């Protein structure tokens, strides 16, 4: 087999208000494995170069800041941001590093590094939609990358890969789509999520769907039946978990008998009601969310 090699694509990863769960999730990628991603190719002929990644790079401190600066000089990199961006008090709630006595916030780094990126990937629900970090009452003014882009008129292409955590295939699969098919051909939904992974509701592919259709609902955890009455948010959640499964296809949320809590949705975690209570006041399946109504109900309880 002859493979034409293209120049390596530089990847810069920066972290805002995160829990590092997006990293530990992607660290469990199977195909490609992290070993192959680091040392070989993402797919034969296409190499990623991890120019800056706080969890795996050798260097710390000043040298790490210089590495970031130099990596950003080579335009056209992939910028991956996980965690939300706190915008209150000029971003003081997340300081990522310091050089020559000057402190840098994740807000500044996002604004600076986004400009010369080929694509910005907001990894995880915090970076995509604010998520847990922006949970009510959101005192740090935590925002999604998209909101920061709108507020600062940044036009760099953005893809959201939500999930708490995101599945590793959603990230690396999307990068593979970009490298092989071109960025312009990646189909996104209204929330900038790749349709390949977020095009269908959990409900549409759920193995418990037959139970739902025949009205057989579990009354308590552990019962046979659809988990709708126990709070499953599958009917309003876009993700391919039922088909893809998690962690080497060993299991997934509904597969282990627990209700989906809609972690890929913009409304997660505040505006969907209690995790173990039936979805209220939402159309099933729902394309139009009544998030505002939900919010009022939730806050007024």
């Amino acid at each position, binding site marked *: 087999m002859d493979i034409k090699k293209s120049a390596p694509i530089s990847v810069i990863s920066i972290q805002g208000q995160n829990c590092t769960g997006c990293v*530990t999730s992607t660290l469990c990628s199977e195909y490609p494995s992290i070993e192959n991603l680091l040392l070989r190719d993402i797919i034969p002929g296409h190499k990623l170069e991890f120019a800056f990644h706080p969890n795996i790079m050798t260097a710390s401190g000043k040298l790490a800041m210089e590495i970031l600066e130099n990596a950003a000089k080579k335009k056209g990199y992939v910028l991956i941001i996980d965690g939300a961006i706190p915008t209150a008090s000029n971003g003081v709630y997340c300081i990522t590093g310091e050089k020559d006595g000057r402190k840098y916030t994740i807000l500044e780094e996002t604004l600076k590094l986004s400009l010369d990126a080929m694509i910005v990937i907001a990894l995880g629900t915090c970076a995509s939609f604010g998520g847990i970090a922006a*949970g009510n009452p959101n005192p740090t003014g935590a925002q999604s990358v998209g909101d920061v882009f709108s507020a600062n008129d940044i036009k760099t292409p953005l893809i959201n890969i939500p999930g708490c955590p995101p599945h590793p295939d959603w990230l690396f699969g999307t990068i593979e789509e970009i490298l092989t098919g071109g960025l312009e051909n990646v189909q996104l939904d209204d929330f900038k999520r790749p349709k390949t992974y977020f095009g269908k509701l959990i409900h549409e592919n759920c193995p418990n769907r037959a139970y739902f259709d025949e009205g057989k609902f579990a009354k308590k955890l552990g019962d046979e039946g659809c988990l709708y009455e126990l709070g499953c948010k599958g009917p309003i959640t876009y993700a391919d978990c039922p088909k893809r499964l998690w962690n080497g296809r060993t299991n997934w949320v509904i597969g282990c008998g627990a209700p989906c809590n809609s972690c890929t949705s913009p409304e997660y975690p505040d505006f969907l009601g209690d995790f173990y209570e039936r979805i209220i006041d939402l159309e099933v399946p729902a394309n139009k969310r009544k998030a505002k109504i939900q919010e009022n109900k939730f806050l007024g309880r």
Partner: protein
Amino acid sequence: MKKIVIHPITRIEGHLKVEAIVDNGQVKDANISGTMFRGIEIMLKGRDPRDSVMITQRICGVCPEPHAIASVSAVDDYAGLTDKIPKNGILMRNLILGTRSIADHILHFYILSGLDYIDPVKVLEYEGGNRNLNALKYFLQQGYSRPFLPRDDIDYKFDAKTTNTIVGHYIKALDIYRKSQQAATIFGGKWPHDAAIVAGGVTEKLTADKITEFIWRLEEILDFVKNCYLPDAIAVAKTYSEYLEIGRGCGNLLAYDSYRIKSNGNYNDTLLKGGLVDNIDKYSEIDINKITEDVTHSWYEDSEPLHPGSGETEPAPEKEAGYSWIKSPRYNGKVYETGPVADVLSTYFGKQDPYIINAVNSALSEIGTDISGMYSVAGRHLGRALSTEIMADQLLKWARELKAGEATAVEYIPPSEGKGIGLCSAPRGALGHWLNVKDGRIYNYQVITPTAWNASPKDKDGQPGPYEQALIGLEIKESSRPIEILRVIRSFDPCTACAVHMVTPKRDTIARYKIV
């Protein structure tokens, strides 16, 4: 006098900064600073108590499972379910926590700390058939080097042969990490952030094939722990033997009871025995009512040190005396370190378990040190490896006790009011969750994490936290590349997202958080 600032500290969880004042090559003072503020507890107010198990896992994506266990224990406690959890439920929770902790320790030793001791570039001299090493060699030969280079040149001490063995384990560790998480997911549902852990037990139904699959997956992990990880941790202690003296810290340890096991027919005993170990080897029982949190040098409005679950905290990012978002937990006003060394030694002295005494003593005699060697940089790596080995042996035993087809959970019928406490051993040490429920909703929720104990700033009496104490007195060879500081800090396995999880309510303009 010279000030050394390291920010960011990479290869840890989260955002951390170190400032050290160095005079004549020796650290005179150190300030540890958590530089990211987010928050979880306030979000829980008003929610269904069961939701805390899902939400608090999101405090940390490196170690979510202990938050799930501490939180579910607090909810079980409040709901009066602790003694009703079916045997399968107890065992599966142990298996999820234990397997994921093993994964976490392996990740820490190789991926996070490894590059402080081994030089992957030496693989260029490698002549052999190991596929992983040859992939790395070819990678370097082609001129690639990120994320391993650029780096500061430091004193790598292993010879080429040992280096290549450990570098091979570094690459293999990525595979074992993935496989460990897969094994635990058989019971937990998903990594990270398990979905199957719920008040009353675990939702996953047990079948013989799942138990079999878990046991065989575990086999490969155990092999790696015994034949790679533990020997490599011992090799670091022997080769970098000066690090058995360096980074001693406060010399006092604190641990909580963890992993319920059977004794006289019920599950009221625990594998790991909590307690306090003062001045290297003086064991005593712990009274959690003596825990307080001090905010003298934290970016919060001043108040007296308070017990978790009482008091008021208001963030003050401009506070003059503040230098960290982390608070200072203290026990009876004293500084305590927590972590795997605390778990192992508290059980060693408090329970006198012959198996654990033997495991610790044989490793220490192989290295040629005694118990006091555990209080050091190399000792912390060893303690982590020993707790991994102890856990690995238990997991197989627990997996064999599972009964396919039998109940894994009991029904959750919540009282409208009540309080609950959940304590457990997280990979980084003692983790506590405090829950207070009124009218069926969460009224107050409080978490004290291991890294808050360890990375805490100075308190009102000027006592530095454990990281800071471990740095004070440290000899620095070259202030432009202070690898000594990084080795000390990483030996604690920092998890700063865990340490700083407080948040303030919006109420539109007023930022005020009241903990009642």
